[in-house]
């Protein structure tokens, strides 16, 4: 039987419209990112008209309402760094082990429960984790180390390690599971034990995914604000140990933006901190995606 097809003319228009709409949606997200960055630059760079560049980046005192204001961000960067590094040191080894256990060792039913639970941890709002930390962790740190206050960089690190874990575990587990079965069987068939297979074949094969997971975890930690503000003590002094109150860059912006006079030096200095943060997270994400690309 011969069938004659005649497509209605509007099909072509639908095709055209859908294509353009999708293109538009895609381009809008790029435009937004560009606009946000431009706005940040515009509001932040004004600062350096009134305030010397070097004093901002290398100044070790942050007292924006003193006269004249001192806007050195070294204590804030160190605060962020201390909290982040502490969190990474705790979250990465734990996360790697958890991911290996879930991907390679746990039996099927337990695997599902564990993975589900870890991902559920990501769903807890950070503010909730923050106040749980405030009432449980902070007094604990204070008592264990016999220090005047438990509101320290160390407490913040523990809290943030919890927040970074789900990202790290779940991404690492995915990349371990993506390792072809053939590698596993190839190694096992030579007489390698399970641990030898994991250590010498699976981890190297999944290494780019593992590194990407770590980078994204760091990105999550460095950008976190509320919980850190609640439990790190919020004191913008130069920290010397992890057991002192610190203040991160994010917390500074959140705490001071409300009271800064719009257009003032203080106001634009907060935006300048925003630029610094933006660049740091951007670099971290860039590194992460470089690792992910290398995997392909």
């Amino acid at each position, binding site marked *: 039987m011969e069938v004659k097809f005649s497509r209605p003319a509007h099909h072509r228009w639908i095709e055209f419209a859908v294509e353009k709409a999708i293109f538009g949606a895609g381009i809008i997200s790029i435009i937004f990112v560009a606009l946000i960055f431009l706005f940040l630059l515009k509001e932040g760079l004004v600062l350096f008209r009134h305030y010397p560049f070097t004093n901002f980046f290398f100044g070790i005192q942050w007292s924006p309402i003193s006269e004249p204001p001192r806007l050195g961000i070294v204590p804030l960067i160190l605060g962020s760094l201390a909290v982040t590094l502490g969190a990474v040191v705790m979250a990465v080894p734990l996360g790697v082990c958890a991911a290996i256990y879930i991907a390679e060792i746990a039996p*099927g039913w337990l695997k599902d429960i564990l993975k589900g639970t870890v991902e559920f941890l990501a769903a807890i709002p950070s503010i909730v984790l923050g106040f749980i930390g405030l009432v449980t962790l902070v007094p604990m740190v204070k008592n264990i180390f016999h220090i005047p206050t438990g509101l320290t960089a160390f407490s913040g690190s523990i809290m943030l390690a919890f927040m970074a874990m789900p990202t790290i575990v779940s991404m690492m587990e995915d990349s371990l599971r993506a390792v*072809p079965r*053939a*590698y596993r*069987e*190839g*190694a*096992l*068939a*030579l*007489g*390698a*034990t399970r641990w*030898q297979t994991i250590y*010498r*074949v699976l981890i*190297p*094969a999944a290494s780019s995914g593992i590194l990407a997971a770590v980078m994204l975890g760091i990105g999550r930690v460095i950008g976190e604000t509320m919980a850190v503000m609640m439990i790190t003590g919020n004191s913008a002094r130069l920290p010397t140990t992890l057991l002192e109150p610190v203040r991160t860059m994010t917390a500074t912006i959140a705490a001071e933006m409300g009271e800064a006079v719009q257009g003032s030096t203080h106001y634009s200095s907060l935006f300048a901190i925003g630029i610094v943060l933006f660049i740091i997270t951007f670099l971290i994400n860039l590194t992460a995606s470089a690792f992910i690309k290398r995997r392909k």
Partner: protein
Amino acid sequence: MSETKLQIQNLSLYYGTHQVLKNICLDVLSHEILGIIGPASSGKTSLLRALNRLNDDVPKFRKEGEVLLEGENIYTDLPVWMVRKRIGMIFALPTPLPLSIYENVAYGPRVHGMNQKKILDKIVEETLQSAFLWDEVKDRLDHPAMRLSGGQQQRLCIARTLAVQPEVILYDEPCSGLDPISTAKVEEAMTMLKSRYTQILVTNNTKQAARVSDRTAFFLMGEMVEINKTEKIFTIPQDKRTEDYVSGRFG
């Protein structure tokens, strides 16, 4: 011929309730190449996986019957790593590890505790020569194994298996993805290895079994229909089903 290397006694394999191998009794002799032919899902691959104990980690896998390697039960008398060291396996798709050529071969000896660079160098060279690969790769041992061609990868896998000094080598359709020239090289390697190893070759290519194996077994639907000297299987098969299969009337 010579003495028995591997005794398979009343072996039945199940995945869940599905029986894939039915009461197989088979003796594999030292230094022979035993070809196993048969259509898809006849249980050939399952048999090899059971001999290397690769099914251990498969959920719901169950076996009945025993396998003896020189009289020792591979499921109860020997630790699993020892079984896999003594009975090596080559897979259908070449499976080099994501390491350099050198490290692929050295991987096996390393997991078994060999760390002396000099001895590893020697093992790598000797096994690559046995697998007819040395001349093609000797100048680029540090290159990633993934960059080799399919045929070279498969010979690398043979070298890797030889490096742990196995006694039995199992081949699971080793040439299914290879061109005729690569296939010939793999077959040549197998023939040369006869003096030192016992080899079992599962293949979908009946001609390959005819070319390289000393004895051939025909499997169908989990049963071993017939086993005999290769020339007999291909010229005067005892069973009608074998005859139909080797003459290409089905399968």
